[in-house]
């Protein structure tokens, strides 16, 4: 009998991403049933588990743009045997990294003070808010990662191929037609 403890644990999170990679993961459609036969989701936007338990695979979407992202990413690294950078933002910062050449002060002023349609202009400084970093960092600059899965987002087929390889104990790779950076 298969019990959930015998299944592979997969944890996922979105840091400075747009949830596009998670949407792409859901795009595997009915193949998610095959996945559910062998795996369960641990901490993930799909489960709302708040902290990562020991997991076999961690999928990280998004780069690192604030202090909370750093904490979450470190927790994933600690708890996941295999950590994968999923998508352009996790790999190189992606579109959020377009701000990396603009001083942080200017970014904040444009968003919260000078920007079009701003009401009650002020730069948010509630202590509950995670502090924003000077730049958006690719995740491999904060923790060691094991694999990268490129794409913006990686297609459902690419995600499937990669995870299928991993579950089969193979070194994950992609056939030519599934390698895209866009």
């Amino acid at each position: 009998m298969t019990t959930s403890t015998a299944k592979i644990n997969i944890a996922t999170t979105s840091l400075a991403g747009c949830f596009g990679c998670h949407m792409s993961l859901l795009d595997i459609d009915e193949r998610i049933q095959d996945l559910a036969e062998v795996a369960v989701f641990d901490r993930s936007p799909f489960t709302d588990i708040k902290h990562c338990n020991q997991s076999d695979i961690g999928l990280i979407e998004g780069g690192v743009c604030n202090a909370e992202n750093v904490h979450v990413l470190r927790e994933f690294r600690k708890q996941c045997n295999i950590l994968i950078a999923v998508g352009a933002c996790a790999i190189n910062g992606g579109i959020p990294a377009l701000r990396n050449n603009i001083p942080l002060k200017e970014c904040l002023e444009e968003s919260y003070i000078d920007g079009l349609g701003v009401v009650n202009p002020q730069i948010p400084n509630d202590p509950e808010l995670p502090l924003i970093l000077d730049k958006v960092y690719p995740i491999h600059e904060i923790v060691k990662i094991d694999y990268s899965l490129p794409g913006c987002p990686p297609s459902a087929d690419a995600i499937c191929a990669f995870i299928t390889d991993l579950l089969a104990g193979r070194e994950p790779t992609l056939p030519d037609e599934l390698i895209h950076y866009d």
Partner: protein
Amino acid sequence: MKTNSISIDGQQITFREGQTIIQAALEAGIYIPYLCYHPDFEAHGSCKVCTVRVNGSHCSACTTFASDGQVVDNHCEDLNSSRRAITQMLFVEGNHLCPSCEKSGDCELQALGYYLKLFGSHFPHLFPHREVDATHPHILLDRDRCIFCELCVRASREVDQKNVFAISGRGIDSELVVNSPSGTLLDSGLDVNDKAAHVCPVGAILIKNQAFQVPIGQRKYDKNRIDDADLIEVKHDHIDS
């Protein structure tokens, strides 16, 4: 006896006197990866992507002449792993955000990454600050994506006879500069029909208002791996000439 032949990964090919290894290889339908090489221009030998092993020594295939009896290693894991590292360095030294780049799908740097199965950056990203020049009515220069192949420099000098572009500085401080009173393309004399406006292998020099005429997903390297597409092109060049 002189046979004018060399072997590449065990395959015997013939060459004509004066041909470089890369010329002979491409003509024989063998792909040697490259970025700064272009069949229309004198070799530059700077990107080092075409590094092969000739009789045991590393050489740039674009600047080394073919000579009788050479034994050349091209597709082997150690050379491809160096090519991967070089390509990764080119990515992290610029600002290459492919999802927001018009050239995506037609870009040789990206296609080389696909060919080499390069999935991650490995190195820390430098996120350099580089200026965009949008002053020209028809041509955009986005220095974030320049890989310093000097193809625009060579095209402007050798074909257009204008000397619009040059590389200034060295190493990590290198910068593509424009030879004009204002330092911008506006008063540079660069014309939209110039060879230099069309030769950039990446998305650094772009013709305006063409961005998505061919949709993402239907572009050159979306459909062909760079070794296929380029060989087809090289063959056509030879048929044409």
